[in-house]
């Protein structure tokens, strides 16, 4: 009985920690979107961050498996949002989220690089993207951080 209670408490604490991590990430996303919500926000004639892109990026974060690290966010000049996994300057995985249901992504692992497009239904992260993130983040297994 005691073991069962301990397991439930552990699970609840873990869920809270994971939810907390995603909540923080989404909060960071919204803060960035607010800072980049006016036309020409950087003085270079860039487009405000697209609210639909922000919503899709938020859905993407919620849909990420809990064992994956959470991304950093960056505004793009066309109003899209980039989600970055950056374990080092030479290993990157980036996803560009626009108002489209297709995600543009690219990876860099030393001299290995590539790009592709995958459809996102708003609730399930494409398997190819999950594998790509894991490959970049697990490389050497030294920089993996909890979600």
């Amino acid at each position: 009985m005691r073991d069962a209670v301990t397991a439930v408490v552990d699970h609840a604490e873990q869920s809270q920690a994971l939810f907390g991590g995603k909540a923080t990430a989404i909060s960071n996303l919204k803060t960035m979107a607010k800072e980049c919500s006016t036309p020409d926000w950087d003085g270079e004639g860039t487009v405000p961050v697209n609210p639909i892109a922000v919503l899709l990026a938020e859905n993407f974060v919620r849909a990420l498996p809990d064992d994956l690290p959470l991304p950093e966010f960056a505004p793009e000049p066309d109003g899209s949002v980039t989600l970055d996994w950056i374990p080092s300057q030479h290993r990157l995985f980036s996803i560009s989220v626009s108002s489209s249901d297709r995600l543009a992504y690219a990876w860099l692992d030393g001299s290995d690089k590539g790009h592709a497009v995958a459809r996102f239904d708003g609730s399930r992260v494409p398997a190819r993207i999950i594998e790509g993130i894991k490959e970049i983040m697990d490389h050497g297994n030294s920089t993996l951080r909890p979600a």
Partner: protein
Amino acid sequence: MATLPSGLPEIVADEEELVRFLTQSNRFNSIMAKPAAFLPNPKFRNTSVFRIIPDPELIRLAWQQNKVGEGSLKAAAACTAIEVRKTGLDVLPEEPPSRHANLEGWPWLDGDADLQRAKQLEIAQGIAQKSKLVAVTAP
């Protein structure tokens, strides 16, 4: 070789240092300037840079002389022209403003905007990988 109003040569040499102003804190982290920092402006289809040595004081001076709007300079990213050219882009001067240049040659696919963004992201990663983040303190 012909020179520009700034006195710089018309052709950007491979070894020349290029600086990109970073005016939004989400465009860099403690490690590097993020790929999004180099993506092209959709209106002009290029990325704006300055041909200056990546010294914080010089960068700040160039920013003060050329800034547009109310934004503030948060940091800068620097790389050489050859690293840009290795990605398939070119560096072409455009003055005024003084010492200004653009990263040109980004892929534009009228029929597939998503694939276009994926291709551009890969190029931007290549530049970000070779760039140095320069801390610039507020004056």
